């Protein structure tokens, strides 16, 4: 073994150590980012689930009332009720009224946007009675 071999061996060893340390650091960063994204995804799920929850509450409160015939007004009232509830931290929620339907759009950094449509009529809050 001569000096060149020793030097080459040392160089290769150094490069390999540096690479593995970089890999370790990258995988740690990835794991932390993944955990953060998971908790953001769960927060988005909670923000969306608040919509049906509010509709069920409104339905339970209106047990003895006859359902309204005016679905757009009921949808608008539902939107106002939703706007009073703050979404989970790190998540923003946008509501849009389209006829009888309300869309809930939920956005957060580094996570794809989600949108779900809700119908107050599906919860019996408006429309005709079922016989």
């Amino acid at each position: 073994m001569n000096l060149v071999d020793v030097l080459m061996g040392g160089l290769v060893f150094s490069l390999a150590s540096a690479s593995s340390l970089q890999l370790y650091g990258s995988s740690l960063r990835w794991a932390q980012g993944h955990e953060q994204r998971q908790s953001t995804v769960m927060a988005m799920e909670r923000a969306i689930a608040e919509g049906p929850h509010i509709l069920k509450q409104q339905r339970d409160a209106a047990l003895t009332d006859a359902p309204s015939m005016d679905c757009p007004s009921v949808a608008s009232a539902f939107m106002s009720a939703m706007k009073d509830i703050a979404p989970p931290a790190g998540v923003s929620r946008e509501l849009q009224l389209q006829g009888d339907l309300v869309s809930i759009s939920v956005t957060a950094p580094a996570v794809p946007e989600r949108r779900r449509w809700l119908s107050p009529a599906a919860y019996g809050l408006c429309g005709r009675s079922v016989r």
Partner: protein
Amino acid sequence: MAFFGALVLLLSSLSIQMAALQSRAGEFSLRQRAQRDDALHSAAQIVAGQLHQYPCLLPLLLKEWAGAPCVSAQAMAALLSGTLPPPDVDLGRYEVTGYTPVRSAGAGLALVAADLELEWHPTRGPISQRRYRLALLPGPILGGVQP
């Protein structure tokens, strides 16, 4: 020695690239799944809302009516399939592929719920099916779509 070192570096670099590709593929799959779930839930809401608003459609779906239909064939077709409202109109189409009544023996075999089978045909991606229970009770409307 140099050759083996270079080989080790090359293999490490390849495995990092593979891991990054897998991670991106996983995130894309999660996004597709979330979009599919949201689309199916939304379609179930739309169909359930229309059925609650036009209860004459229920016996029509169950083929138990006798007499003039309450809606046109075109309106009926629109109930059974359609797209989500804008801006999601290009995401795909939904279709009601099955509708099974649920009757309660305790309520004199009254229609208390209905199982709705929905199919989601996305613009991109595989077709998905899901079943929803639509709760219906006589008298004041009490019901909703159960995932």
